[in-house]
């Protein structure tokens, strides 16, 4: 797993208070990890801060799973 994936996973565990084993790439924040809409906004803000990236509203809306977040941040970091 990449550094980014590790960090994303850690942030998700910390913010949602879920067990690490549940934070699989395909896990949906809302359906599988019990997040509500405010949680997802807080997660996006935590990602922005941790990775020094800006995630605009329309991109944030498309980040539904752990993998979505990792892919988006990796793409931003590569650019």
């Amino acid at each position: 797993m990449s550094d980014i994936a590790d960090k994303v996973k850690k942030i998700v565990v910390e913010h949602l208070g879920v067990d690490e084993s549940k934070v699989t790439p395909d896990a949906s924040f809302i359906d599988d990890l019990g997040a509500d809409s405010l949680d997802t906004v807080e997660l996006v803000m935590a990602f922005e801060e941790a990775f020094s990236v800006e995630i605009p509203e329309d991109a944030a809306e498309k980040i539904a799973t752990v993998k979505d977040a990792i892919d988006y941040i990796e793409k931003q970091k590569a650019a």
Partner: protein
Amino acid sequence: MFSLSGKTALVTGASGGIGAAIARQLHAQGATVVLSGTREAALQELADSLGERAHIAVANLSDPAKADGLVAKAEAVAGAPLDILVNNAGLTRDTLAIRMKDSDWSQVMTVDLESPFRLARAALKGMLRRRAGRIISIASVVGTTGNAGQANYAAAKAGIVGMSKSLAQEAGPRGVTVNVVAPGFIETPMTDVLPETVREKLVGSIPLGRMGNTGDVASAVVYLASDEAAWVTGTTLHVNGGMAMV
């Protein structure tokens, strides 16, 4: 009841009559208070008279950057995260609309409406994470009734109400409450200069038969800041002696 022991509160406009009374009462209930305003000497004097658990954070809220940074500054001087934000700072630029300058409008909007939003936005980030917090903004009865000569001020104060209701909906799921206190005619240095006949007429329109004092407003803030008000959010508490029953 209404103990604020262990809580940290930021009060803007704390060098003014109502702001100072709010700070005093929050402090009397046990809160650590951070007094903010533009007049450092007046803030320091108030802090000195309160003694322990009182800090100052000078900030001119007409500067957006200062407004954005005030919550962090307050938390730094208090050495604790913010539990209670009281948006009290405000100014007036009264004149009839046909004579109102753009700057009269924009100054009032910046300080009375935009800066409370900036402060609330900054405070909410920590409050949501901690699953607790109180945001209380001081509006005015004129935000509901309107008042000739105060189109700018009344618009800003009505704006506070709409903003607070929205923030209350956003923050409710995290146990953070957002409320408004809307004072009526309060005795302050500003109202002391009114001619006697004007005062008499105003008091005549108040069922409780007197002008309000700053303590009347501060008590309402203490209530909304307390744990006892945990199930009250998005509301406006009118403190006006019955002058406007809305």
